[in-house]
């Protein structure tokens, strides 16, 4: 009987607390994405060798693009979510293209790699709200998990 009461009390507490935490869930996961890019900027700035800087940027951008590609193949997405994710992916792809001097871009010079990484963080932090807001918290969680696991 005592165990039953404890179980009921725990369930009640969870029922009360869950909506309070749910409010912040999307914000927290959006923030995690922003931190991913900022961590990349800090690593690039700490690295001395331009080739290593470029490799770091390429590796992280490619990991992100792979995650976005996999998320877009999820069967339960609606058209608006697919479109929003595709547009955000295009923003990231453009950074990758510019870094490597393809698709009409001049390659980012070695001396500009730190500045480029800073620009990338600022631009994606702005763009993220426009595109990711239309996704659900669940999709953002999947993106973050894929980035971490890839």
């Amino acid at each position, binding site marked *: 009987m005592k165990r039953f009461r404890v179980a009921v009390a725990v369930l009640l507490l969870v029922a009360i607390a869950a909506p309070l935490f749910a409010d912040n869930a999307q914000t927290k996961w959006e923030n995690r994405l922003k931190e991913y890019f900022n961590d990349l*900027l800090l690593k690039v700035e700490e690295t001395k060798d331009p080739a290593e800087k470029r490799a770091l940027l390429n590796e992280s951008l490619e990991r992100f693009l792979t995650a976005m590609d996999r998320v877009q193949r999820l069967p339960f997405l609606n058209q608006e979510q697919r479109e929003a994710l595709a547009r955000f992916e295009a923003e990231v792809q453009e950074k990758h293209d510019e870094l490597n001097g393809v698709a009409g871009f001049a390659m980012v010079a070695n001396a500009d790699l730190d500045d480029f990484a800073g620009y990338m963080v*600022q631009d994606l932090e702005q763009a993220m709200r426009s595109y990711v807001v239309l996704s659900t918290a669940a999709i953002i969680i999947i993106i973050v998990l894929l980035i971490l696991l890839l």
Partner: protein
Amino acid sequence: MAPAPEPPTGPLRYAVVFVIHGDGSYLFHDEGGKPLEADQVALERARATAEANPEAEVFVFHQRDRRGLTRENGTLELYRNGTIVLRRGYRRNSGGLEAEIALYRDLTRIAPSADPQRLFLYFGHQVPERPESGYHSSLPRASFGLEPLADGLAGFLPPEHRFDLAVLSTCNNGTPTAIAALAPRARYLVASPADLHLSHLATGTLAHLERRDPMEAGLLARELALAAFGELTERVSTIVTISVYDLDTLAPLVAEAAAELQARLAGAEGVLEFYDCGEDPRFSSLAGLPGVTVLYRPPRFGRERTKAAHSGLQCY
């Protein structure tokens, strides 16, 4: 215990309303990689403005998520004559500004017959061109957009009055639709016709309004835009575009474009793609309009790094 008496107040020649949206992800990183919350940055600036205006009544509404066990998702700070006189939480139930308007009407000491200089400043993400859900984290189903915002502005005003200046520190709200929606509610508008960095527009120029000629709202708008532009261009490498709109001059000139954009909105689905109206031959009538002051600096990288000018208006 009886409530503490409010300090005596002097003349209130300025009525200022800040609405700071923080009910979502506002994390950004400064040049050193330090994490900051954009709504907290805006809140500090609003407080500094309120404390530096001894002849103003300043309402600072901070729309935020729910914290802990309380159902409150907003905080009001009310300043009179440069001193805070009230700080309290409140609860928002809708996507618009109904809760803020109710508090304002209940608490303002400025009589409807008075004629102070009126300023409205909104800090947040892009206000959607058409009402959409998903803007507020704590109210995910609530709808918000330009129309509810314009209705909200009316709620802070006595009948037949307008704000002298409205400021939208948001992305992509320098549009013909926004001009058409806000022209009945404000004389001048400062907004960005492109992405605006999350760190928001600086408001230092609003300190000590009493040292200015209160009739010169247009000059105040231009000075605020110029100072914010200078501050942003020093710190960020993304695009910086801030426009000042003389709404009386502009509203009739953009009416046709606004109607066309509204028609597009009615049939559009999904995410709107924003671009400079000056790049679209269908909106060639919007190029070089009187009543638009454009401050523009292209981004340091990206496709638009060589774009030399901006029309000051954003289309989609």
